């Protein structure tokens, strides 16, 4: 019984990888899945509303030009999602250098981004694809 279940699960895993590799060609881009620039912009607006109420991180946004932040983040997400955008700022390391952003703050932002995507009705698979593209920025953002 148990061995059968384990074998079945391994089988599903292997098939899953093969199918997901084979399907890559015909799928819409992540940029399209997010609703193109307008969809990304809506997610970022939602995110800013959530950040504004978040005691852990809102102090970090005091004195920040939120229009500038909104455009910058939307452009950045557009670019990592392979959309037709050029993120105008310097790289992530330079943007965050000297602020000593913490692991807690990074987690809080990711938590809030997921919440924003949930509220915009972004499917789980699309959420995960975007998070996978954003996660490597951790090393350039935290404790810099």
């Amino acid at each position: 019984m148990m061995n059968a279940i384990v074998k079945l699960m391994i089988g599903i895993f292997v098939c899953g990888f093969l199918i997901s590799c084979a399907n890559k060609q015909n799928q819409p881009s992540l940029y399209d899945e997010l609703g193109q620039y307008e969809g990304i912009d809506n997610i970022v607006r939602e995110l800013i509303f959530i950040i504004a109420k978040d005691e852990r991180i809102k102090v970090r946004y005091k004195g920040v030009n939120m229009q500038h932040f909104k455009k910058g983040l939307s452009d950045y997400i557009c670019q990592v999602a392979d959309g037709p955008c050029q993120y105008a700022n310097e790289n992530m390391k330079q943007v965050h250098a000297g602020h000593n952003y913490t692991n807690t703050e990074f987690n809080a932002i990711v938590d809030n981004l997921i919440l924003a995507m949930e509220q915009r009705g972004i499917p789980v698979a699309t959420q995960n694809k975007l998070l996978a593209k954003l996660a490597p920025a951790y090393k350039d953002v935290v404790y810099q």
Partner: protein
Amino acid sequence: MKISRYCFAIVSLFSSGFVFAATLDLDSDSTISRSRLLATGGASTIEGAAGGGIVPMAVLSGYGAQEEQGAVAFGSYVDTGDYQLEVVGASVSWRNRVELSFAQQKLTHDSLTAALSLPTDSISQRIISAKVRVLGDLIYTPVPQISIGVQHKKNLDFLVPGAVGAKKDSGTDINLTATKLILGGFFNRNLLLNANLRYTNANQTGLVGFGGDKNDDKEVLPEVSAGVLLNRQWLVGAEYRQKPNNLSFIKEDDWQTVFVGWFPTKRIAVVAAYVDLGEVATFKDQTGWYLSLQGSF
């Protein structure tokens, strides 16, 4: 007799759930300052450390990030027909760096008592554990999160374990664990991969004592688990735990589970599993159900 005990355990698990639910605001994810993502604190293993059900993970209990604290309390129940295991425990974690946990286990063995005319019908064990995150982050670093843990176990009813050949009533396991959450790693669902090496001489986790007539040396045994997060709240997966075979009188088989974990909020985790413990102290085919409830603070 067994049915009534089973019902009691279920009722006590769920009543503790209602206590958690009643004392905590279920919709207040954003108001508690525990910042790690939902489900990344895992559940509580039967030995108290954060993980799945039978295999620990490198993650630390609760949801505290590196500038925060976390804590959990849990109750678990397993019934394999001839045996029932009740576990209660708690755990605290500091800055996503150090985890300290406690678990009290009670194994009830009516069938064994009847078969061997034993004077007792249960064995209890107390486990105190510490775990340190050595490097990496579950999600954000290319390397897996790696932790080292120590579990000190004290068997409180050594009469039966001693009679079947166990050498000691206490022992210490050392765990080296690596865990990685691959975002979108399986059909664009998040994939959880976990491996643990346990240095141990515990028989049936220590419930049947430590060391034995056949082998008294500690050995390194592998344990693995994997799961897929269907969405933020639902984790399905399986675990495998290799076991020692120290006693000539009673054979010990490897353990396996398939589980479903539900993380409705950062406050609550519920895990249900089908377990296959193989042969346990002369009783073959010990399969059954596992239920665990955890509250996080």
